[in-house]
């Protein structure tokens, strides 16, 4: 018997603290699989954000840093500038990356910092109790938009991948989704490319991962995936927004 599917080695064998059906878990696994596949585990360093994935430093078995909210790209910059031959990645939520950490992500991209960002867009601040994120959809009800997000009051969701692609320092930017197997497979490819871009020293790489938060969306897991598909995909087109000539 050959194992066709097993836990990647880069993930410590312990249960996740995530909610049932939370796709943070899938995203973790994909990252770990890519690290295994590229055989870079020993030189990989993870930077955890503040958000539901704050404990990802426990799960990824590599060396890790727990960064202050939104500043993972600055922390990663510090690490990578000292240890330029290591592989560094941040794992950030949309509150972390697209709200408080806007300055840090924009300028890490602008400087072409040679690390990889896994950006989990679940359209909500999950850890703190389901508040509106910059990525929350128009009309979306959250604990701080009890009447639904309204453009007049709260503006419109930000498309980070598109925005960062404007910057010359961004080498690779793609948006993927985890709402079904085909997309999970595509997500894995994008994550792999992003790490490859880093290993090749080509600059800043980011994969935006549309992810479900059943708990804070107030939906059972399967309905959450459906909501993602029906609503998020409309506003957040999937695809590669930027890729270096060197990498296919």
């Amino acid at each position, binding site marked *: 018997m050959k194992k*066709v599917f097993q836990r990647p080695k880069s993930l410590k064998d312990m*249960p996740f603290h995530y909610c*049932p059906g939370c796709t943070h878990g899938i995203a973790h696994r994909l990252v770990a699989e890519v690290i295994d596949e590229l055989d870079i585990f020993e030189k990989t360093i993870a930077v955890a954000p503040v958000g539901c994935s704050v404990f990802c430093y426990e799960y990824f078995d590599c060396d890790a840093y727990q960064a202050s909210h939104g500043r993972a790209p600055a922390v990663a910059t510090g690490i990578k500038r000292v240890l330029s031959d290591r592989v560094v990645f941040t794992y950030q939520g949309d509150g972390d990356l697209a709200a408080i950490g806007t300055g840090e992500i924009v300028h890490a991209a602008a400087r072409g910092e040679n690390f990889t960002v896994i950006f989990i867009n679940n359209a909500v601040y999950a850890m703190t109790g389901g508040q509106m994120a910059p990525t929350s959809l128009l009309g979306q009800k959250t604990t701080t938009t009890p009447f639904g997000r309204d453009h007049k009051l709260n503006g419109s969701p930000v498309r980070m991948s598109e925005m960062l692609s404007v910057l010359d320092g961004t080498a690779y930017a793609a948006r993927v989704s985890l709402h079904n197997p085909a997309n999970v497979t595509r997500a894995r490819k994008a994550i792999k490319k992003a790490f490859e871009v880093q290993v090749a020293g080509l600059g800043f790489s980011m994969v935006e991962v549309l992810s479900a938060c059943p708990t804070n969306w107030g939906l059972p897991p399967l309905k959450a995936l459906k909501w993602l598909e029906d609503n998020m995909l409309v506003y957040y087109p999937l695809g590669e927004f930027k890729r270096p000539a060197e990498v296919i």
Partner: protein
Amino acid sequence: MPRVTFREDRCKGCELCKNFCPKGLVVMADHINAMGFHPAAVVEIEKCTGCATCAMMCPDMVIEVEKEDKKVG
């Protein structure tokens, strides 16, 4: 025949595996596990193609899939 192993104590009963199994082989058990969830399990394993779709969609890496190691051709 492939082997699909569920690490029952880790299952959170989210039903993603069940939903995406192309053959519809995953069911949720009646009992609950220590975490209070109805864990998933495979029935009619003989129909399983070993495609690992269930495993791929499981957010909690509950599922391991093994397949006969047959050489092609």
